[in-house]
Protein backbone atom coordinates (compact mmCIF):
# COMPACT_ATOMS: atom_id res chain seq x y z
CA UNK A 1 0.00 0.00 0.00
CA UNK A 2 3.01 2.29 0.32
CA UNK A 3 2.71 3.35 -3.32
CA UNK A 4 -0.41 5.29 -2.32
CA UNK A 5 1.29 7.50 0.25
CA UNK A 6 3.32 9.72 -2.14
CA UNK A 7 0.28 9.96 -4.42
CA UNK A 8 -2.03 11.09 -1.63
CA UNK A 9 0.56 13.61 -0.43
CA UNK A 10 0.96 14.97 -3.97
CA UNK A 11 -2.82 15.26 -4.31
CA UNK A 12 -2.89 17.21 -1.04
CA UNK A 13 -0.11 19.63 -1.97
CA UNK A 14 -0.72 20.26 -5.68
CA UNK A 15 -3.91 22.39 -5.54
CA UNK A 16 -2.62 24.91 -2.96
CA UNK A 17 0.73 25.12 -4.77
CA UNK A 18 -0.42 25.29 -8.40
CA UNK A 19 -3.92 26.61 -7.98
CA UNK A 20 -7.44 25.23 -7.57
CA UNK A 21 -9.32 27.27 -10.10
CA UNK A 22 -8.53 29.50 -13.06
CA UNK A 23 -10.61 32.26 -14.58
CA UNK A 24 -10.43 33.73 -18.09
CA UNK A 25 -12.25 37.01 -18.82
CA UNK A 26 -13.42 35.53 -22.14
CA UNK A 27 -12.86 32.62 -24.44
CA UNK A 28 -9.91 34.17 -26.26
CA UNK A 29 -7.81 35.28 -23.30
CA UNK A 30 -5.83 32.60 -21.55
CA UNK A 31 -7.01 31.61 -18.09
CA UNK A 32 -5.14 32.68 -14.97
CA UNK A 33 -5.06 30.87 -11.66
CA UNK A 34 -7.40 32.59 -9.21
CA UNK A 35 -7.67 32.42 -5.43
CA UNK A 36 -10.21 29.98 -4.04
CA UNK A 37 -13.11 32.00 -2.58
CA UNK A 38 -13.46 31.53 1.16
CA UNK A 39 -17.23 31.12 1.46
CA UNK A 40 -18.60 28.35 3.70
CA UNK A 41 -19.67 25.78 1.04
CA UNK A 42 -16.30 25.98 -0.70
CA UNK A 43 -14.42 25.66 2.57
CA UNK A 44 -16.61 22.75 3.64
CA UNK A 45 -15.91 20.94 0.36
CA UNK A 46 -12.18 21.61 0.70
CA UNK A 47 -12.15 20.31 4.28
CA UNK A 48 -14.00 17.18 3.20
CA UNK A 49 -11.45 16.77 0.40
CA UNK A 50 -8.57 16.79 2.88
CA UNK A 51 -10.44 14.45 5.22
CA UNK A 52 -10.92 11.97 2.37
CA UNK A 53 -7.23 12.23 1.51
CA UNK A 54 -6.44 11.55 5.16
CA UNK A 55 -8.70 8.53 4.88
CA UNK A 56 -6.73 7.30 1.86
CA UNK A 57 -3.45 7.80 3.73
CA UNK A 58 -4.61 6.06 6.92
CA UNK A 59 -6.25 3.15 5.15
CA UNK A 60 -3.12 2.77 3.00
CA UNK A 61 -1.06 2.35 6.17
CA UNK A 62 -3.47 -0.18 7.74
CA UNK A 63 -4.43 -2.65 5.07
CA UNK A 64 -7.32 -4.06 7.10
CA UNK A 65 -10.27 -3.26 4.87
CA UNK A 66 -8.96 -3.74 1.39
CA UNK A 67 -11.54 -1.60 -0.42
CA UNK A 68 -11.21 1.34 1.98
CA UNK A 69 -8.37 3.15 0.13
CA UNK A 70 -10.40 2.98 -3.06
CA UNK A 71 -13.56 4.33 -1.40
CA UNK A 72 -11.61 7.17 0.26
CA UNK A 73 -9.90 8.05 -3.02
CA UNK A 74 -13.22 8.15 -4.89
CA UNK A 75 -14.56 10.49 -2.19
CA UNK A 76 -11.44 12.64 -2.58
CA UNK A 77 -12.02 12.90 -6.33
CA UNK A 78 -15.64 13.91 -5.79
CA UNK A 79 -14.87 16.48 -3.08
CA UNK A 80 -12.04 17.97 -5.13
CA UNK A 81 -14.41 18.36 -8.06
CA UNK A 82 -17.04 19.87 -5.76
CA UNK A 83 -14.50 22.31 -4.31
CA UNK A 84 -13.52 23.42 -7.80
CA UNK A 85 -17.14 23.60 -8.97
CA UNK A 86 -18.37 25.61 -5.96
CA UNK A 87 -15.21 27.73 -6.02
CA UNK A 88 -15.63 28.72 -9.66
CA UNK A 89 -19.32 29.46 -9.12
CA UNK A 90 -18.38 31.94 -6.40
CA UNK A 91 -15.35 33.37 -8.20
CA UNK A 92 -16.94 34.04 -11.58
CA UNK A 93 -17.86 37.72 -11.97
CA UNK A 94 -21.64 37.84 -11.73
CA UNK A 95 -22.03 40.51 -14.40
CA UNK A 96 -20.07 38.69 -17.12
CA UNK A 97 -21.58 36.01 -19.29
CA UNK A 98 -18.39 35.47 -21.30
CA UNK A 99 -16.02 34.83 -18.41
CA UNK A 100 -14.91 31.21 -18.27
CA UNK A 101 -13.80 29.17 -15.30
CA UNK A 102 -11.84 25.94 -15.26
CA UNK A 103 -9.85 23.85 -12.82
CA UNK A 104 -6.30 25.19 -12.52
CA UNK A 105 -3.18 23.10 -13.11
CA UNK A 106 -3.03 21.99 -9.47
CA UNK A 107 -6.58 20.62 -9.51
CA UNK A 108 -6.09 18.89 -12.86
CA UNK A 109 -2.85 17.26 -11.73
CA UNK A 110 -4.46 16.18 -8.45
CA UNK A 111 -7.30 14.57 -10.36
CA UNK A 112 -4.76 12.71 -12.49
CA UNK A 113 -2.77 11.63 -9.44
CA UNK A 114 -5.94 10.50 -7.66
CA UNK A 115 -7.06 8.44 -10.67
CA UNK A 116 -3.65 6.79 -10.64
CA UNK A 117 -3.97 6.14 -6.91
CA UNK A 118 -7.42 4.65 -7.46
CA UNK A 119 -6.15 2.34 -10.19
CA UNK A 120 -3.08 1.40 -8.14
CA UNK A 121 -5.22 0.63 -5.08
CA UNK A 122 -7.38 -1.65 -7.22
CA UNK A 123 -4.30 -3.43 -8.57
CA UNK A 124 -2.98 -3.95 -5.03
CA UNK A 125 -6.27 -5.46 -3.94
CA UNK A 126 -5.95 -7.81 -6.89
CA UNK A 127 -8.91 -6.25 -8.69
CA UNK A 128 -9.40 -4.53 -12.00
CA UNK A 129 -8.48 -0.84 -12.15
CA UNK A 130 -11.34 -0.11 -14.53
CA UNK A 131 -14.04 -0.89 -11.94
CA UNK A 132 -13.28 1.70 -9.23
CA UNK A 133 -12.50 4.23 -11.95
CA UNK A 134 -15.92 3.56 -13.38
CA UNK A 135 -17.50 4.03 -9.94
CA UNK A 136 -15.63 7.35 -9.64
CA UNK A 137 -16.86 8.37 -13.06
CA UNK A 138 -20.42 7.50 -12.10
CA UNK A 139 -20.02 9.62 -8.97
CA UNK A 140 -18.81 12.53 -11.07
CA UNK A 141 -21.79 12.14 -13.38
CA UNK A 142 -24.16 12.29 -10.41
CA UNK A 143 -22.27 15.32 -9.08
CA UNK A 144 -22.59 16.95 -12.51
CA UNK A 145 -26.31 16.21 -12.54
CA UNK A 146 -26.79 18.07 -9.24
CA UNK A 147 -25.51 21.22 -10.91
CA UNK A 148 -22.51 21.72 -8.63
CA UNK A 149 -20.13 21.73 -11.61
CA UNK A 150 -22.30 23.90 -13.86
CA UNK A 151 -20.08 26.96 -13.73
CA UNK A 152 -17.11 25.10 -15.22
CA UNK A 153 -16.55 26.02 -18.85
CA UNK A 154 -16.34 22.34 -19.75
CA UNK A 155 -19.86 21.77 -18.44
CA UNK A 156 -21.12 24.90 -20.22
CA UNK A 157 -19.55 23.65 -23.43
CA UNK A 158 -21.21 20.26 -22.87
CA UNK A 159 -24.59 21.89 -22.23
CA UNK A 160 -24.25 24.06 -25.32
CA UNK A 161 -23.31 21.14 -27.51
CA UNK A 162 -25.51 18.49 -25.92
CA UNK A 163 -27.03 17.31 -29.21
CA UNK A 164 -23.67 17.28 -30.97
CA UNK A 165 -22.12 15.36 -28.10
CA UNK A 166 -24.90 12.78 -28.14
CA UNK A 167 -24.52 12.27 -31.89
CA UNK A 168 -20.77 11.99 -31.62
CA UNK A 169 -21.08 9.43 -28.81
CA UNK A 170 -23.64 7.38 -30.73
CA UNK A 171 -21.48 7.59 -33.84
CA UNK A 172 -18.43 6.47 -31.88
CA UNK A 173 -20.22 3.44 -30.46
CA UNK A 174 -21.57 2.55 -33.90
CA UNK A 175 -18.14 2.84 -35.52
CA UNK A 176 -16.44 0.71 -32.87
CA UNK A 177 -19.19 -1.92 -32.92
CA UNK A 178 -19.28 -2.13 -36.72
CA UNK A 179 -15.51 -2.51 -36.90
CA UNK A 180 -15.52 -5.13 -34.15
CA UNK A 181 -18.24 -7.15 -35.87
CA UNK A 182 -16.49 -6.93 -39.23
CA UNK A 183 -13.22 -8.05 -37.65
CA UNK A 184 -14.99 -10.95 -35.93
CA UNK A 185 -16.54 -11.98 -39.24
CA UNK A 186 -13.02 -12.23 -40.67
CA UNK A 187 -11.19 -13.61 -37.66
CA UNK A 188 -13.59 -16.40 -36.70
CA UNK A 189 -13.69 -18.28 -40.03
CA UNK A 190 -9.96 -17.75 -40.61
CA UNK A 191 -9.10 -19.10 -37.18
CA UNK A 192 -11.35 -22.09 -37.76
CA UNK A 193 -9.62 -22.74 -41.09
CA UNK A 194 -6.13 -22.19 -39.72
CA UNK A 195 -6.65 -24.46 -36.70
CA UNK A 196 -5.11 -27.58 -38.20
CA UNK A 197 -3.02 -25.86 -40.88
CA UNK A 198 0.14 -24.34 -39.38
CA UNK A 199 1.33 -22.84 -42.68
CA UNK A 200 -1.96 -21.08 -43.33
CA UNK A 201 -1.93 -19.86 -39.75
CA UNK A 202 1.59 -18.47 -40.08
CA UNK A 203 0.80 -16.75 -43.36
CA UNK A 204 -2.42 -15.28 -41.97
CA UNK A 205 -0.83 -14.03 -38.76
CA UNK A 206 2.13 -12.53 -40.68
CA UNK A 207 -0.22 -10.63 -42.99
CA UNK A 208 -2.35 -9.44 -40.09
CA UNK A 209 0.70 -8.32 -38.14
CA UNK A 210 2.17 -6.31 -40.99
CA UNK A 211 -1.09 -4.39 -41.14
CA UNK A 212 -0.57 -3.71 -37.45
CA UNK A 213 2.63 -1.82 -38.29
CA UNK A 214 0.96 0.61 -40.71
CA UNK A 215 -0.03 3.88 -39.01
CA UNK A 216 -3.82 4.15 -38.77
CA UNK A 217 -3.86 7.58 -40.38
CA UNK A 218 -2.02 6.13 -43.41
CA UNK A 219 -4.27 3.06 -43.58
CA UNK A 220 -7.42 5.19 -43.53
CA UNK A 221 -5.83 7.39 -46.19
CA UNK A 222 -4.92 4.42 -48.36
CA UNK A 223 -8.52 3.18 -48.23
CA UNK A 224 -10.08 6.46 -49.32
CA UNK A 225 -9.07 6.40 -52.99
CA UNK A 226 -10.04 2.75 -53.72
CA UNK A 227 -13.36 3.16 -51.88
CA UNK A 228 -14.13 6.33 -53.81
CA UNK A 229 -13.33 4.54 -57.06
CA UNK A 230 -15.56 1.61 -56.07
CA UNK A 231 -18.42 3.92 -55.18
CA UNK A 232 -18.21 5.80 -58.46
CA UNK A 233 -18.01 2.54 -60.42
CA UNK A 234 -21.01 1.04 -58.61
CA UNK A 235 -23.48 3.79 -57.67
CA UNK A 236 -25.44 1.21 -55.65
CA UNK A 237 -22.62 1.22 -53.12
CA UNK A 238 -22.81 4.98 -52.78
CA UNK A 239 -26.50 4.67 -52.00
CA UNK A 240 -25.61 2.20 -49.29
CA UNK A 241 -23.38 4.85 -47.74
CA UNK A 242 -20.10 3.43 -48.92
CA UNK A 243 -17.69 6.01 -50.26
CA UNK A 244 -14.19 7.43 -50.08
CA UNK A 245 -14.97 9.91 -47.32
CA UNK A 246 -17.17 8.83 -44.44
CA UNK A 247 -17.39 5.92 -42.04
CA UNK A 248 -16.44 3.26 -44.61
CA UNK A 249 -12.63 3.73 -44.68
CA UNK A 250 -12.60 4.12 -40.90
CA UNK A 251 -14.59 0.95 -40.21
CA UNK A 252 -12.54 -1.09 -42.67
CA UNK A 253 -9.30 0.33 -41.31
CA UNK A 254 -10.19 -0.23 -37.65
CA UNK A 255 -11.38 -3.77 -38.41
CA UNK A 256 -8.06 -4.49 -40.13
CA UNK A 257 -6.23 -3.73 -36.88
CA UNK A 258 -8.56 -5.85 -34.78
CA UNK A 259 -8.19 -9.03 -36.83
CA UNK A 260 -4.77 -9.90 -35.41
CA UNK A 261 -5.59 -9.70 -31.68
CA UNK A 262 -8.90 -11.48 -32.28
CA UNK A 263 -7.47 -14.29 -34.42
CA UNK A 264 -4.56 -14.80 -32.06
CA UNK A 265 -6.92 -14.93 -29.10
CA UNK A 266 -9.35 -17.31 -30.78
CA UNK A 267 -6.55 -19.63 -31.88
CA UNK A 268 -4.93 -19.77 -28.48
CA UNK A 269 -8.36 -20.15 -26.90
CA UNK A 270 -9.07 -23.17 -29.08
CA UNK A 271 -5.77 -24.67 -27.94
CA UNK A 272 -6.50 -24.37 -24.23
CA UNK A 273 -8.13 -27.81 -24.19
CA UNK A 274 -5.35 -30.33 -23.45
CA UNK A 275 -4.52 -32.67 -26.33
CA UNK A 276 -5.11 -35.86 -24.33
CA UNK A 277 -8.55 -34.64 -23.31
CA UNK A 278 -9.40 -34.00 -26.96
CA UNK A 279 -8.09 -37.46 -27.84
CA UNK A 280 -10.17 -39.03 -25.10
CA UNK A 281 -13.29 -37.22 -26.29
CA UNK A 282 -12.66 -38.41 -29.83
CA UNK A 283 -12.15 -41.93 -28.51
CA UNK A 284 -15.57 -41.69 -26.88
CA UNK A 285 -16.95 -41.06 -30.34
CA UNK A 286 -17.48 -37.31 -30.09
CA UNK A 287 -17.84 -35.69 -33.52
CA UNK A 288 -15.43 -32.91 -34.59
CA UNK A 289 -18.12 -30.29 -34.02
CA UNK A 290 -18.86 -31.91 -30.67
CA UNK A 291 -15.18 -31.55 -29.74
CA UNK A 292 -15.25 -27.93 -30.87
CA UNK A 293 -18.44 -26.81 -29.10
CA UNK A 294 -18.38 -29.20 -26.17
CA UNK A 295 -14.71 -28.98 -25.30
CA UNK A 296 -12.56 -26.43 -27.09
CA UNK A 297 -14.88 -23.41 -27.00
CA UNK A 298 -16.01 -23.72 -23.37
CA UNK A 299 -12.47 -24.30 -22.13
CA UNK A 300 -11.01 -21.48 -24.19
CA UNK A 301 -13.83 -18.98 -23.59
CA UNK A 302 -11.83 -17.01 -21.02
CA UNK A 303 -8.88 -16.51 -23.36
CA UNK A 304 -11.16 -15.61 -26.25
CA UNK A 305 -13.07 -13.08 -24.16
CA UNK A 306 -9.75 -11.56 -23.12
CA UNK A 307 -8.89 -11.06 -26.79
CA UNK A 308 -12.33 -9.60 -27.45
CA UNK A 309 -11.81 -7.17 -24.59
CA UNK A 310 -8.44 -6.04 -25.93
CA UNK A 311 -9.87 -5.62 -29.42
CA UNK A 312 -12.94 -3.73 -28.19
CA UNK A 313 -10.85 -1.27 -26.17
CA UNK A 314 -8.61 -0.80 -29.18
CA UNK A 315 -11.63 -0.20 -31.42
CA UNK A 316 -12.89 2.57 -29.12
CA UNK A 317 -9.50 4.29 -29.22
CA UNK A 318 -9.01 3.88 -32.96
CA UNK A 319 -12.48 5.24 -33.72
CA UNK A 320 -11.27 8.64 -32.47
CA UNK A 321 -9.30 9.02 -35.69
CA UNK A 322 -12.35 8.29 -37.86
CA UNK A 323 -13.38 11.95 -37.70
CA UNK A 324 -10.36 12.86 -39.81
CA UNK A 325 -11.72 10.88 -42.76
CA UNK A 326 -15.23 12.17 -42.18
CA UNK A 327 -16.41 9.14 -40.25
CA UNK A 328 -17.84 11.03 -37.29
CA UNK A 329 -17.53 9.86 -33.70
CA UNK A 330 -16.07 11.66 -30.70
CA UNK A 331 -12.98 12.55 -32.71
CA UNK A 332 -15.11 15.21 -34.41
CA UNK A 333 -15.07 17.21 -31.18
CA UNK A 334 -11.37 16.52 -30.58
CA UNK A 335 -10.30 17.70 -34.03
CA UNK A 336 -12.61 20.72 -33.89
CA UNK A 337 -11.00 21.56 -30.58
CA UNK A 338 -7.54 21.18 -32.07
CA UNK A 339 -8.50 23.45 -34.95
CA UNK A 340 -9.75 26.15 -32.60
CA UNK A 341 -7.15 25.41 -29.92
CA UNK A 342 -10.12 25.07 -27.55
CA UNK A 343 -9.17 22.96 -24.56
CA UNK A 344 -12.75 22.45 -23.44
CA UNK A 345 -13.78 21.07 -26.77
CA UNK A 346 -10.81 18.70 -26.82
CA UNK A 347 -11.68 17.50 -23.31
CA UNK A 348 -15.33 17.15 -24.29
CA UNK A 349 -14.20 14.67 -26.93
CA UNK A 350 -11.48 12.93 -24.93
CA UNK A 351 -13.37 12.30 -21.67
CA UNK A 352 -16.20 10.31 -23.29
CA UNK A 353 -13.62 8.24 -25.22
CA UNK A 354 -11.92 7.46 -21.93
CA UNK A 355 -15.24 6.69 -20.24
CA UNK A 356 -16.33 4.48 -23.11
CA UNK A 357 -13.14 2.46 -23.06
CA UNK A 358 -13.45 2.06 -19.28
CA UNK A 359 -17.02 0.81 -19.67
CA UNK A 360 -16.03 -1.63 -22.40
CA UNK A 361 -12.97 -2.80 -20.48
CA UNK A 362 -14.83 -3.32 -17.21
CA UNK A 363 -17.91 -4.79 -18.86
CA UNK A 364 -16.04 -7.43 -20.80
CA UNK A 365 -13.80 -8.18 -17.84
CA UNK A 366 -16.87 -8.84 -15.70
CA UNK A 367 -18.28 -11.04 -18.45
CA UNK A 368 -15.02 -13.00 -18.53
CA UNK A 369 -15.29 -13.51 -14.79
CA UNK A 370 -18.67 -15.18 -15.19
CA UNK A 371 -17.11 -17.72 -17.52
CA UNK A 372 -15.50 -20.58 -15.59
CA UNK A 373 -11.80 -20.47 -16.46
Amino acid at each position, binding site marked *: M*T*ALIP*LALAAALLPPLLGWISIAPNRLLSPRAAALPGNPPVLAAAVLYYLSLLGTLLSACRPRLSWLPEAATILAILFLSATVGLGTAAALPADSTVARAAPAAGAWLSLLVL*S*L*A*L*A*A*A*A*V*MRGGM*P*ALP*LLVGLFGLTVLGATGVLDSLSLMREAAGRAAELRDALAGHVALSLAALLLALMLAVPFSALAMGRPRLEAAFLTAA*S*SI*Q*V*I*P*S*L*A*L*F*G*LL*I*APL*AALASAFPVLRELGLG*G*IGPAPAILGIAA*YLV*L*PLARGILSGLRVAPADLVEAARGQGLSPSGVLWGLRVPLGAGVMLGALR*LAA*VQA*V*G*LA*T*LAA*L*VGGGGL*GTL*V*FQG*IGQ*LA*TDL*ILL*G*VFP*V*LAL*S*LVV*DAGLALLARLVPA
Partner: protein
Amino acid sequence: MRRARAARLAAETLAFLAALLAAPRAEALWHALFPEVARPTFQQDSWLLLLGWHLVLSLGAVGLAALIGIPAGILATRPAGRRMRPLLDAVFSLAQGIPPVAAVALALPLLGFGAAPTLLALVLYAALPVLRATVSGLESVPASATEAARGLGFSPWQRLRDVELPLARPVLLAGMRVALTLSVATTAVGAVAGARCLGTPIVTGLANANPSYVLQGAIFTAWLALLLDRALGLFGAPGPAGTGSPGSGAAQP
Protein backbone atom coordinates in the same frame (compact mmCIF):
# COMPACT_ATOMS: atom_id res chain seq x y z
CA MET B 1 19.87 -15.70 -44.23
CA ARG B 2 20.19 -12.56 -42.16
CA ARG B 3 22.62 -11.10 -44.69
CA ALA B 4 20.14 -11.71 -47.50
CA ARG B 5 17.42 -10.02 -45.45
CA ALA B 6 19.67 -7.04 -44.80
CA ALA B 7 20.48 -6.75 -48.50
CA ARG B 8 16.79 -6.89 -49.38
CA LEU B 9 15.99 -4.27 -46.80
CA ALA B 10 18.73 -2.02 -48.21
CA ALA B 11 17.34 -2.44 -51.70
CA GLU B 12 13.85 -1.62 -50.47
CA THR B 13 15.11 1.46 -48.67
CA LEU B 14 16.68 2.64 -51.92
CA ALA B 15 13.41 2.00 -53.74
CA PHE B 16 11.60 4.00 -51.05
CA LEU B 17 13.98 6.94 -51.43
CA ALA B 18 13.74 6.79 -55.22
CA ALA B 19 9.94 6.82 -55.02
CA LEU B 20 10.10 9.72 -52.58
CA LEU B 21 12.24 11.72 -55.02
CA ALA B 22 10.08 10.74 -57.96
CA ALA B 23 6.72 11.57 -56.30
CA PRO B 24 6.77 15.35 -56.92
CA ARG B 25 7.80 14.73 -60.55
CA ALA B 26 5.13 12.14 -61.29
CA GLU B 27 2.45 14.65 -62.22
CA ALA B 28 1.28 12.37 -65.04
CA LEU B 29 0.69 9.44 -62.68
CA TRP B 30 -1.26 11.42 -60.07
CA HIS B 31 -3.21 13.14 -62.79
CA ALA B 32 -4.15 9.81 -64.35
CA LEU B 33 -5.23 8.46 -60.94
CA PHE B 34 -7.19 11.54 -59.91
CA PRO B 35 -8.34 13.27 -63.09
CA GLU B 36 -10.84 15.40 -61.18
CA VAL B 37 -8.23 16.97 -58.88
CA ALA B 38 -6.84 20.26 -60.20
CA ARG B 39 -3.42 20.03 -58.51
CA PRO B 40 -2.79 16.38 -57.79
CA THR B 41 0.95 16.60 -57.01
CA PHE B 42 1.98 17.49 -53.46
CA GLN B 43 4.66 20.17 -53.76
CA GLN B 44 4.14 22.42 -50.74
CA ASP B 45 7.01 20.81 -48.88
CA SER B 46 10.02 18.79 -49.88
CA TRP B 47 9.35 15.10 -49.29
CA LEU B 48 12.89 14.61 -48.04
CA LEU B 49 12.34 17.30 -45.44
CA LEU B 50 9.08 15.69 -44.35
CA LEU B 51 10.82 12.32 -44.13
CA GLY B 52 13.64 13.90 -42.13
CA TRP B 53 11.23 15.42 -39.61
CA HIS B 54 9.26 12.21 -39.36
CA LEU B 55 12.43 10.25 -38.61
CA VAL B 56 13.79 12.84 -36.16
CA LEU B 57 10.51 12.95 -34.24
CA SER B 58 9.74 9.25 -34.10
CA LEU B 59 13.28 7.92 -33.63
CA GLY B 60 14.08 10.71 -31.20
CA ALA B 61 10.98 9.80 -29.21
CA VAL B 62 11.91 6.12 -29.14
CA GLY B 63 15.41 7.07 -27.99
CA LEU B 64 14.04 9.25 -25.20
CA ALA B 65 11.49 6.58 -24.33
CA ALA B 66 14.28 4.03 -24.00
CA LEU B 67 16.24 6.43 -21.78
CA ILE B 68 13.18 6.72 -19.50
CA GLY B 69 11.63 3.29 -19.84
CA ILE B 70 14.62 0.98 -19.46
CA PRO B 71 16.04 2.52 -16.24
CA ALA B 72 12.53 2.78 -14.81
CA GLY B 73 11.89 -0.86 -15.68
CA ILE B 74 15.15 -1.91 -14.07
CA LEU B 75 14.27 0.07 -10.93
CA ALA B 76 10.81 -1.46 -10.78
CA THR B 77 12.26 -4.97 -10.74
CA ARG B 78 14.83 -4.28 -8.00
CA PRO B 79 13.78 -5.22 -4.46
CA ALA B 80 13.50 -1.54 -3.48
CA GLY B 81 11.27 -0.72 -6.44
CA ARG B 82 8.86 -3.66 -6.17
CA ARG B 83 6.44 -1.64 -4.07
CA MET B 84 5.91 0.75 -6.96
CA ARG B 85 4.83 -2.11 -9.18
CA PRO B 86 1.04 -1.61 -8.64
CA LEU B 87 1.51 2.02 -9.62
CA LEU B 88 3.09 0.94 -12.90
CA ASP B 89 0.22 -1.41 -13.64
CA ALA B 90 -2.19 1.42 -12.89
CA VAL B 91 -0.38 3.70 -15.33
CA PHE B 92 -0.52 1.02 -18.01
CA SER B 93 -4.21 0.39 -17.58
CA LEU B 94 -5.04 4.10 -17.60
CA ALA B 95 -2.90 4.86 -20.63
CA GLN B 96 -4.50 1.99 -22.53
CA GLY B 97 -7.79 3.86 -22.54
CA ILE B 98 -6.38 7.11 -23.89
CA PRO B 99 -5.64 6.93 -27.60
CA PRO B 100 -2.40 8.71 -28.57
CA VAL B 101 -4.45 11.11 -30.70
CA ALA B 102 -6.05 12.25 -27.49
CA ALA B 103 -2.65 12.60 -25.84
CA VAL B 104 -1.46 14.82 -28.70
CA ALA B 105 -4.67 16.83 -28.43
CA LEU B 106 -4.33 17.25 -24.66
CA ALA B 107 -0.70 18.36 -24.96
CA LEU B 108 -1.67 20.95 -27.55
CA PRO B 109 -3.16 23.63 -25.26
CA LEU B 110 -0.12 23.29 -23.00
CA LEU B 111 2.55 23.52 -25.68
CA GLY B 112 0.93 25.19 -28.68
CA PHE B 113 0.99 24.14 -32.31
CA GLY B 114 4.02 22.45 -33.78
CA ALA B 115 6.25 19.52 -33.00
CA ALA B 116 6.34 20.02 -29.21
CA PRO B 117 2.95 18.51 -28.24
CA THR B 118 3.57 15.62 -30.58
CA LEU B 119 6.98 14.95 -29.06
CA LEU B 120 5.59 15.05 -25.52
CA ALA B 121 2.79 12.65 -26.37
CA LEU B 122 5.22 10.50 -28.30
CA VAL B 123 7.74 10.15 -25.50
CA LEU B 124 5.09 9.42 -22.87
CA TYR B 125 3.43 6.85 -25.09
CA ALA B 126 6.54 5.15 -26.38
CA ALA B 127 8.00 4.93 -22.88
CA LEU B 128 5.13 2.68 -21.75
CA PRO B 129 5.78 -0.35 -24.02
CA VAL B 130 9.52 -0.04 -23.35
CA LEU B 131 8.91 0.04 -19.62
CA ARG B 132 6.45 -2.82 -19.75
CA ALA B 133 8.79 -4.92 -21.89
CA THR B 134 11.75 -4.19 -19.61
CA VAL B 135 9.77 -5.28 -16.57
CA SER B 136 8.38 -8.44 -18.13
CA GLY B 137 11.73 -9.24 -19.74
CA LEU B 138 13.58 -8.95 -16.46
CA GLU B 139 10.88 -10.88 -14.63
CA SER B 140 11.12 -13.69 -17.16
CA VAL B 141 14.77 -14.29 -16.27
CA PRO B 142 14.79 -17.64 -14.47
CA ALA B 143 15.61 -17.41 -10.79
CA SER B 144 18.12 -20.23 -11.27
CA ALA B 145 20.21 -17.99 -13.55
CA THR B 146 20.38 -15.13 -11.06
CA GLU B 147 20.99 -17.60 -8.22
CA ALA B 148 23.87 -19.13 -10.15
CA ALA B 149 25.32 -15.67 -10.80
CA ARG B 150 25.02 -14.89 -7.11
CA GLY B 151 26.75 -18.15 -6.31
CA LEU B 152 29.61 -17.17 -8.59
CA GLY B 153 30.07 -14.01 -6.56
CA PHE B 154 28.61 -11.54 -9.05
CA SER B 155 27.72 -8.15 -7.61
CA PRO B 156 24.12 -6.96 -8.16
CA TRP B 157 25.35 -4.64 -10.91
CA GLN B 158 27.26 -7.48 -12.65
CA ARG B 159 24.22 -9.73 -12.34
CA LEU B 160 22.12 -7.10 -14.04
CA ARG B 161 24.63 -6.37 -16.79
CA ASP B 162 25.93 -9.86 -17.56
CA VAL B 163 22.97 -12.10 -16.76
CA GLU B 164 19.61 -10.38 -16.50
CA LEU B 165 19.79 -7.81 -19.29
CA PRO B 166 21.21 -10.21 -21.91
CA LEU B 167 18.50 -12.76 -21.07
CA ALA B 168 15.80 -10.09 -21.18
CA ARG B 169 17.08 -8.70 -24.49
CA PRO B 170 14.57 -10.36 -26.89
CA VAL B 171 11.57 -9.18 -24.87
CA LEU B 172 13.10 -5.74 -24.49
CA LEU B 173 13.69 -5.48 -28.23
CA ALA B 174 10.11 -6.55 -28.89
CA GLY B 175 9.01 -3.69 -26.65
CA MET B 176 11.22 -1.28 -28.58
CA ARG B 177 9.63 -2.52 -31.78
CA VAL B 178 6.15 -1.81 -30.45
CA ALA B 179 7.35 1.60 -29.29
CA LEU B 180 8.70 2.35 -32.76
CA THR B 181 5.45 1.35 -34.48
CA LEU B 182 3.52 3.45 -32.02
CA SER B 183 5.72 6.47 -32.44
CA VAL B 184 5.82 6.37 -36.25
CA ALA B 185 2.01 6.27 -36.20
CA THR B 186 1.65 8.96 -33.54
CA THR B 187 4.06 11.22 -35.40
CA ALA B 188 1.82 10.96 -38.45
CA VAL B 189 -1.18 11.97 -36.33
CA GLY B 190 0.93 14.85 -35.00
CA ALA B 191 0.48 16.50 -38.40
CA VAL B 192 -2.97 17.50 -37.12
CA ALA B 193 -1.29 19.48 -34.36
CA GLY B 194 1.03 21.17 -36.82
CA ALA B 195 4.07 18.88 -36.69
CA ARG B 196 5.60 18.65 -40.15
CA CYS B 197 6.06 15.01 -41.14
CA LEU B 198 4.89 12.48 -43.69
CA GLY B 199 1.41 12.81 -42.21
CA THR B 200 1.25 16.43 -43.35
CA PRO B 201 0.19 15.64 -46.96
CA ILE B 202 -2.53 13.34 -45.59
CA VAL B 203 -3.93 15.98 -43.27
CA THR B 204 -3.58 18.74 -45.90
CA GLY B 205 -5.30 16.52 -48.44
CA LEU B 206 -8.16 15.67 -46.07
CA ALA B 207 -8.65 19.33 -45.19
CA ASN B 208 -8.70 20.42 -48.84
CA ALA B 209 -10.61 17.45 -50.31
CA ASN B 210 -7.56 16.38 -52.28
CA PRO B 211 -7.47 12.56 -52.29
CA SER B 212 -4.25 12.62 -54.30
CA TYR B 213 -2.30 14.26 -51.45
CA VAL B 214 -3.87 11.81 -49.03
CA LEU B 215 -2.77 8.85 -51.11
CA GLN B 216 0.79 10.15 -51.54
CA GLY B 217 1.21 10.84 -47.85
CA ALA B 218 -0.39 7.52 -46.89
CA ILE B 219 1.85 5.51 -49.21
CA PHE B 220 5.06 6.97 -47.82
CA THR B 221 3.93 6.90 -44.19
CA ALA B 222 2.91 3.26 -44.43
CA TRP B 223 6.05 2.33 -46.35
CA LEU B 224 8.32 4.05 -43.82
CA ALA B 225 6.57 2.27 -40.96
CA LEU B 226 7.05 -1.13 -42.61
CA LEU B 227 10.72 -0.44 -43.41
CA LEU B 228 11.55 0.71 -39.89
CA ASP B 229 9.77 -2.28 -38.39
CA ARG B 230 11.69 -4.69 -40.59
CA ALA B 231 14.94 -2.92 -39.74
CA LEU B 232 14.35 -3.53 -36.03
CA GLY B 233 13.35 -7.10 -36.83
CA LEU B 234 16.77 -7.50 -38.37
CA PHE B 235 18.32 -6.81 -34.98
CA GLY B 236 16.53 -9.83 -33.63
CA ALA B 237 13.42 -8.21 -32.21
CA PRO B 238 10.54 -10.68 -32.31
CA GLY B 239 7.68 -9.30 -34.37
CA PRO B 240 4.15 -8.62 -33.22
CA ALA B 241 3.11 -12.05 -34.47
CA GLY B 242 5.90 -13.73 -32.53
CA THR B 243 5.07 -15.56 -29.37
CA GLY B 244 7.74 -13.78 -27.35
CA SER B 245 6.13 -10.39 -26.93
CA PRO B 246 4.32 -10.48 -23.60
CA GLY B 247 2.72 -7.25 -22.65
CA SER B 248 3.25 -5.63 -26.01
CA GLY B 249 -0.49 -5.17 -26.21
CA ALA B 250 -2.11 -2.62 -28.42
CA ALA B 251 0.18 -1.00 -30.93
CA GLN B 252 -1.99 1.37 -32.91
CA PRO B 253 -3.23 4.74 -31.78
